[in-house]
């Protein structure tokens, strides 16, 4: 039902140590946010697309569809940043005069919007790499290893498990209602959706009680213990991740001109 979740279990990288994938995704994301450099963002998008589509064998079309998913938010927000409302006479590239005000776009605004767009896409590609290659169960064991409160991780895994149970129930109730014209117009839609959710709520409630009864009868004492898969950390992968991140940082420094400045000053200092 949730395609991303299915791919997380069947992709070519699903057997790689989850910590390596989390490290790659998060480190790249942070590098992406730390620099203001469109070149770096493009590099990140390319890298993550390559890793996800070529190495993990996620269908390119699906990845593209995901990349287009946040477009509505992005378009609205970027447009909001681009447009400036100012007193008339404010220098704009293009604008509409209304009363004593001008609504328009400036060069600086356009550059900021473009940068923002690419940076968000870069970070999003990291997120998709993580969610398409790492099974949720492995994420939980990593969180457990990171010493997050056990209750929190347990809640997460319970919620994850029951999302699918409830989605299936919802699907069945919805189909039953829809075949009986439950969603024919706005009025019936509200009534049907209300009934669906209230019965879903009651079912959740009894599911929880049944789960507790079942666990208690099996000797539940307050902790859900699960067997975890064991993975070996690969030194090679870690090195590659390190090199890639270093390369990204160099791209970031170089494109923002910092590297240039450092090189110049050290060379000047050394008396070249």
């Amino acid at each position, binding site marked *: 039902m949730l395609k991303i979740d299915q791919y997380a279990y069947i992709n070519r990288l699903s057997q790689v140590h989850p910590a390596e994938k989390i490290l790659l995704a998060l480190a790249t994301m942070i590098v992406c946010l730390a620099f203001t450099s469109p070149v770096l963002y493009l590099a990140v998008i390319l890298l993550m697309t390559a890793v996800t589509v070529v190495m993990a064998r996620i269908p390119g079309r699906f990845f593209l569809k995901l990349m287009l998913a946040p477009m509505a938010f992005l378009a609205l927000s970027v447009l*909001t940043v681009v447009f400036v*409302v100012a007193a008339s006479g404010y220098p704009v590239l293009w604008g509409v005069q209304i009363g004593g005000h001008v609504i328009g776009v400036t060069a600086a605004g356009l550059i900021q919007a473009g940068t923002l767009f690419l940076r968000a896409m870069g970070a999003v590609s990291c997120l998709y790499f993580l969610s398409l290659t790492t099974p949720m169960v492995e994420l939980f064991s990593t969180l457990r290893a990171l010493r997050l409160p056990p209750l929190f991780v347990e809640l997460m895994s319970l919620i994850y498990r029951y999302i699918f149970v409830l989605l299936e129930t919802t699907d069945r109730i919805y189909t039953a209602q829809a075949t009986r014209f439950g969603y024919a117009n706005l009025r019936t839609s509200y009534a049907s*959706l209300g*009934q669906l959710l209230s019965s879903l*709520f009651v079912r959740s409630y009894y599911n929880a009680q049944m789960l*507790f009864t079942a666990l208690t009868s099996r000797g539940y004492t307050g902790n859900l213990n699960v067997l975890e898969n064991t993975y070996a950390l690969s030194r090679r992968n870690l090195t590659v991740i390190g090199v890639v991140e270093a390369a990204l940082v160099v791209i970031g420094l170089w494109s923002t001109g910092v590297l240039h400045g450092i090189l110049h000053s050290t060379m000047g200092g050394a008396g070249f």
Partner: protein
Amino acid sequence: MSNRCQLYKKFLLIGVLLGYFMLNPLAPAYAMHIMEGFLPLRWCLFWAVLTLPFLVLGMRSIGRTVREHPEMKMLLGLAGAFTFVLSALKMPSVTGSSSHPTGVGLGTVLFGPTAMTVLGFIVLIFQALLLAHGGITTLGANTFSMAVVGPLVAWGLYRVCVRLKTPLWAGVFLGALFGDLCTYVTTATQLALAFPSPVGGFTASLVKFMAIYAVTQVPLAVSEGLLTVVIFNLLTVHNRRELEELAVLARPEKPAGEGRS
């Protein structure tokens, strides 16, 4: 000159309307979460740090509840899954397009605001990872708006209405409506703080963001208010006993019964 000005106004109005009808079917697809990578690093950290104490308080409160009533852990798990599924459902909107409810109002009234903070946080993680909606770096900001501000406002209004002895539906409707609206105002504030306008700074930027998102978020809030009332009415008619048992969750300090009100 004034003629031309009028013409421009007309064009702008048409443009705004066109934009509205073009974006409306797309934009309200989900309640507004700030997408991955949209906030600068320092604002990500700022909101994460601000959200942390609420999460710790929420976890403590849940921990206490679970120690006294072990079965509550399962119920909280199901409550979280319920909130996730609720937020993944399409809701017919009053403007004709469809959108997704946030579940903040319903969840808060059923499970209480402290539990909702933790559940909302987990739901946001799953929305980012399973639905590609929201993000990891913006998790702090989104949790603050949807799982801290929203539930607190919804809960406050609901309690006030209960105390004023208004009909139950009024409290539920106002709680869900303003829980949503305040979530959206908070998100707009977060965006405006991160991207102040070159002219007029934060205030001008806030007005811009609020104006643009009001188009999609106000109908969504009204729809969710209505839907929450429909659900709650059904629950009070058919499932009074379960609701009474749930009062344990909503008020962890006094599990015995006689509430604070």
